[in-house]
């Protein structure tokens, strides 16, 4: 419920001129972090790689909330 309320207020964020949904922000963070971490994966990049996974799971939560919200308010 809290997530759905959050979606209602932060449905779209404007970043670098692009209107992005919260789920998109986290998925983009996840994908980019995964790509950036690869050259250093055996050292310091591993933590960034882990962060990419956690950003991914956060993205899923917001994406599900977004689809449920859109379905109810279509």
């Amino acid at each position, binding site marked *: 419920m809290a997530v759905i309320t959050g979606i209602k207020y932060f449905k779209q964020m404007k970043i670098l001129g692009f209107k992005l949904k919260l789920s998109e922000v986290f998925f983009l963070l996840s994908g980019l972090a995964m790509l950036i971490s690869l050259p250093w994966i055996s050292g310091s990049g591993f933590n960034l790689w882990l962060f990419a996974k956690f950003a991914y799971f956060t993205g899923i939560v917001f994406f599900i909330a977004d689809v449920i919200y*859109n379905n109810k308010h279509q």
Partner: protein
Amino acid sequence: MELNLPDFIRLLIQLCLAVAGASAFWGFVLTRRAKNDPDHKSEYEKIIELVGKISAFSSVLFLLFWFLASNFIFPAVSLAHEGIKIAPTNEYIRAGFLASTFFVFLFSILVLISIKYLFFNKARFQKLAPKFFLIQFLLVAIIISLQVLKPSFDKEQLFFIFHNFHSIFTLAIVVLIDILYLTTFKNNSLKPIVYNLFPWMSIGIWIGLGLDFASVFLILPGALVLNSQFFLSQTVVAIIILNGTLLSSRVNDYLIDSLKPVETRKFKTSFEQVFHWSGSISIVSWLTIYSVDFFKFNASFPVLFFSYIAFIFLARAVYEVINRKFLKLEPLSEPLGLN
């Protein structure tokens, strides 16, 4: 590249079984949605029949390949997704085939009965469809989870279960979306139902990939092997996430928007190009990480990556041919919708 018949047959088993599972799952979802929307009963029945046919076709192929592999072909070695290596021994794979025999037997009986009704008694099939789809999904879930069986239940066994199970919700849904999109493209009465289901199917894909991510944590850090295969898989997974961001929100919005007449649409017609590229990247990326799962590639990362890019261009070209030959539409004069 090391390509051999056992690896290839196991890839086909996984693909057909996953598509059978995904179509059973979404077939069941469609039967539930149809129950809540009696005004569009006939449209739902057509899509349920279509999903039933996809399910039956993939199930028959699975049974054929499973029979071939379990009886005549020695089980092959497998790698995990994302290039994170954990190779089940042939003993585990053989034990998996043995343990799933009873469930495959039940599955084959169910497939025979559902094919009989699907082709010779459609009214009865529609009545029994929720039960068929639900039982089929449960059986597929059991069979796909038992593909690799260790003598003891530990983290590695749990990894194998998640790792095999998630394909029902990843590659299989991508394949199912492509089939549904192409087969309903010219049918204006079915498109609203199918397009409105796509955001929910996207949730399935995200959760499926999440299951694989979660399963990887069970075998880290020992299973990390930093070779070109690992870097290819990781790069492709990152591209799947970045492309999926576009595909699951903007492209789904675009498809739903395309149900309106051109003059009232939010999206420009040129966005169609973005959609086509995105779709090509998606299917090639998923097929790439599944190929990495079953085959060993000895080439360097740049060679593998440029081959992957070449396949994306090839898929885009194939889609363009299909689009120009078969998928030209007349402009809409009024909005298409469920209401």
